[in-house]
């Protein structure tokens, strides 16, 4: 679907020029005869477009972004319709949940433990300056629960699950397996896309809970190792009332949106892959970039919306 649109967007100006030139020749033959050249000869239009290459590049860029957003929106509506009607493949959902969720646990664990440690090391100079060892749990916990754990988990899941998903769907698209599904009257969105989308959202939500807990554990022991703050003191700092369920819920709400972004963009780029093995590489690259940028932009907007 998208390659056609994109090539249309690229071809758009040229096609319009061509049509206009044809139109002019058809309607004003006298002009073109008199001047010896057609009204909108390719030569002329070439120079006029060369005069504003920046504008043309901007237009192409903008129409590319718009067609991407439009494609994502159409896919989202398609998926949500299947999900509401429960018109998707359950077995595929559970298979994907296992593949994406359980198999990502090692990476999520390592990331979370190290992230908690890094948070404490970064908070250490400030804590030492004020001598506020009791506040270490609050400082590290606040940043971890609200921002860092959901964000880093989303980035890792984006790298592992999102990229993998695009690679798989892209391979299917390149080897015409999706067309084969259509030929067998199996709905590719209900069979392939909706289960993957759902399981990415669920995976990211559950992984964020998991990594919240592990990051705080890592932070507690890094605090003991680097600052000599007992883990008990750290946990008390977490629970003295400066942090509430609201902070955890804030992070979890974000993780659902991040999951939707990753699921949507990875499925979209996977389905619109073309051009053999290099094409698969290109669309995996495009997915991870678009998802990462989308995660940060939505993180900003959500921080305000949820405040």
């Amino acid at each position, binding site marked *: 679907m998208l390659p056609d649109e994109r090539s249309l967007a690229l071809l758009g100006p040229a096609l319009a020029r061509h049509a206009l030139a044809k139109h002019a020749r058809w309607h004003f033959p006298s002009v073109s005869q008199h001047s010896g050249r057609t009204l909108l000869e390719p030569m002329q239009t070439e120079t006029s477009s060369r005069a504003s290459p920046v504008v043309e590049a901007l237009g192409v860029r903008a129409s590319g972004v718009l067609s991407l957003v439009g494609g994502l929106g159409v896919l989202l509506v398609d998926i949500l319709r299947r999900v509401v009607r429960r018109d998707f493949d359950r077995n595929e959902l559970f298979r994907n949940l296992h593949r994406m969720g359980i198999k990502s646990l090692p*990476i999520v664990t*390592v*990331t979370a433990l*190290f*992230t908690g*440690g*890094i948070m404490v*090391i*970064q908070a*250490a*100079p*400030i804590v030492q300056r004020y001598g506020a060892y009791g*506040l270490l749990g*609050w400082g590290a916990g*606040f*940043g971890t629960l*609200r*921002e860092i754990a959901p964000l*880093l988990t989303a*980035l*890792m899941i*984006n*790298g*592992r699950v999102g*990229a*993998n998903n*695009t*690679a*798989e769907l*892209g*391979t299917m698209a*390149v*080897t015409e397996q999706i067309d084969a599904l259509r030929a067998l009257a199996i709905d590719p969105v209900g069979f392939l896309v909706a289960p993957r989308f759902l399981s990415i959202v669920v995976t990211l939500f559950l992984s964020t809970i998991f990594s919240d807990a592990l990051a705080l554990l890592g932070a507690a022991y890094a605090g003991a190792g*680097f600052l000599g703050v007992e883990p008990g003191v750290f946990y008390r700092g977490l629970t003295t009332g*400066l942090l509430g369920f609201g902070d955890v819920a804030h992070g979890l709400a974000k993780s659902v949106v991040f999951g939707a972004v990753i699921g949507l963009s990875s499925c979209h780029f996977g389905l619109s892959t073309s051009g*053999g*093995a*290099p*094409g*698969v*590489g*290109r669309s*995996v*690259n495009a997915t*991870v*970039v678009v998802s*990462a*940028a989308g995660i*940060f*932009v939505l*993180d*900003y907007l959500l*921080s*305000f919306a949820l*405040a």
Partner: protein
Amino acid sequence: MTSSYEPSALPLGRTRSRLAAQLGRLFLEAFVAIRDLYRVFVLTLYYSLRGEPNRRAFFREMYEIGNRSLGFLCIVMGFIGMILVYQGGLQTQRVVPDLSLLGATFLQLLVRDLAASICALMLATRVGAGIAAEIGSMVVTEQVDALRMCATDPVDYLIRPRFLASLSVFGALVVIAAGVAFLSGMWTAFAFFGINPRTFANVSMVSVGDLTIGLTKCVAYGAAIPVISGYCGLTAFGGSEGVGAATTRAVVSSSLAVIMLNFVISGTGYLVFG
């Protein structure tokens, strides 16, 4: 590396010994991967010092890694700056009413850790995936074998220019990204908390130690990302599926490497500089 430690090749019946075999296999595979990665790294260093300079490839890769990542990086870092200052300001207000040190603390955090680390995570995603996809599709379409036929080491021809380009361009990218993040943070502090930009732009808390830690991180990440993703690309096999798998592996391993290097460098820096 197939048959020697395949679990099915061992005469095993019990679950416990099968588990042990699987664990052993995991360790052996990890060992092989790390050894190969180390070999690629050392070869890259060797060729960087001894090989003939390939200026065209070097500048092309600098453009590919540096210039083409700049827009993406600026968007991400701009939003990061706004988010961090907003969240940090809100939270600090709960404990201390005085926000005049917000800018200084933010700048210190940016120089010490966030600018380099978040840039590196983003570049691990963008550049890492790009390198692995490019080299992986060359491997799958047997272009790398053709290189070997021409007596050229793919590490020399493909990974070295990327390594040198990434190493030289990474610092500049981090500086620009830190600037963008700081400016957007300054705007947020002014718009939401009414902090004067002059108060916000306070460099008094940034010490030589912070700068050293930040620059060390730049060098470490800049070296790690191209080597790891190039290695993942070179070990791709099996058609378009293999290219996809290699790209995934590149993103995951280079992100993990960034996080681990960050932990090690931050910890060492804390112990050294305090």
